């Protein structure tokens, strides 16, 4: 390990870390924004549920690196444009999250739905205030999985020149220099751990009843 290399390159490492975080997290947010309405539709019209599951399964089996490369040919972006990574990982996050969203909404018991209607919740307020909160534990389990997966997937993009911390791996390999690789590994694992903890924390804040239930 060459500690002086780390000191001299702190700024560069910080930029790669921030870029890595951006490439991994933005797609999760966009993917969730896609998955919520799609999952909701699949629950309202149960005939959509099996084809939705099949589509998300096929999309998820396509390797991320392949998608990074094929996308520019389809949507006309430059091959080295980071937007390809954002779009590709958004597709993955969306494909992965529709199932937890749909399963979560399906887990809402009928008597709960009927009670909500009975005490005067109209349709959309009922979805937002009653059904979605009950679905949250499913959604958050999906979010944790997809965020950790994204953080490690972004690195592969370094093979085509855009990979955030992954560039430390290719750089270290090409110069036969271990320090950047170790730094990249440590930061990547730390990023995954921190992101996971943050999501758990948000879940705790959003679902206070889960804790109340456990302690009683």
């Amino acid at each position, binding site marked *: 390990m060459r500690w002086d290399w780390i000191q001299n390159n702190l700024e560069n490492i910080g930029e790669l870390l921030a870029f890595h975080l951006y490439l991994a997290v933005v797609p999760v947010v966009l993917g969730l924004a896609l998955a919520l309405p799609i999952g909701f539709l699949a629950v309202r019209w149960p005939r959509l549920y099996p084809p939705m599951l099949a589509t998300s399964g096929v999309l998820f*089996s396509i*390797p991320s690196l*392949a998608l990074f490369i094929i996308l520019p040919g389809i949507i006309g972006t430059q091959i080295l444009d980071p937007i390809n990574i954002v779009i590709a990982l958004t597709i993955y996050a969306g494909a992965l999250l529709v199932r937890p969203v749909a399963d979560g909404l399906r887990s809402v018991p009928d008597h709960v739905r009927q009670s909500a209607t009975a005490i005067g919740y109209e349709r959309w307020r009922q979805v937002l205030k009653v059904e979605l909160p009950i679905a949250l534990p499913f959604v958050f389990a999906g979010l944790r999985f997809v965020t950790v997966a994204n953080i490690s997937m972004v690195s592969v993009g370094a093979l*085509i020149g855009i*990979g955030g911390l992954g560039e430390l791996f290719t750089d270290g390999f090409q110069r036969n220099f271990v320090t950047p690789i170790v730094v990249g590994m440590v930061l990547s694992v730390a990023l995954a751990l921190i992101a996971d903890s943050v999501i758990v924390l948000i879940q705790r804040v959003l679902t206070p009843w889960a804790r109340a239930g456990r302690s009683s």
Partner: protein
Amino acid sequence: MSIFAQLLEFIGDPAHWSGPRGIPVRIFEHVWYTALSLGIAALIALPVGLLIGHTGKGAFLAISIGNAARSFPSLGVLTLLVLAVGLGLTPVLVALVVLGIPPIVAATYEGIRGVSPATVDAARGMGMTEFDVLRRVELPIALPLVISGLRSSALQIVSTATIAAFVALGGLGRFLIDGLGVRNYAEMVTGAVLVALLAIAVDLVFALFSRIVVSDGLTGRAPAPSADTDLAPATTH
């Protein structure tokens, strides 16, 4: 020229179908890395998953290690190993095995834990040894989940095996890396499409495998037993 025209032109060129750099050889190499890594990962992960599922001991530790391993970037593991032990197949296999183990352990564990305790008790009551309970009762019931674990492990390995090309090995990643090197987009797309097709093929193989080996009694494909069916052979009816 559209992406599809470029793809067809590259694939249509007979020169790309022969020799040690041809498409068939690259596909074979890719499948070889994948099969070898999946085999080693399964040899390690299946016994661990079965053991912690059956005994219920060490589950928290194993799942935590698995989650930590899931956050390891494969490209980092690979480049670090290559600098440590040099170029060759070993670093690639280690990186892919590390990637492949967690899904198998987690799914096997969950499958075995999901077997009804009443069923396990009944098996013990019939005088089965612990090993028999695991082999003849728990494993067959857990099989759909075990196979889905193997399947997601295989999918991740087949996608990630492209990184072998980065450390001077073969496989379909060669088209991606070589194509990028000479700015030949057609070659990169060919590699990308072939990897995607291979992943979908792997997915189908596992779906088929699951249909064949999972007991009909679990999938609902067997006729449900009713009051007027007894256990006598069908020929007596």
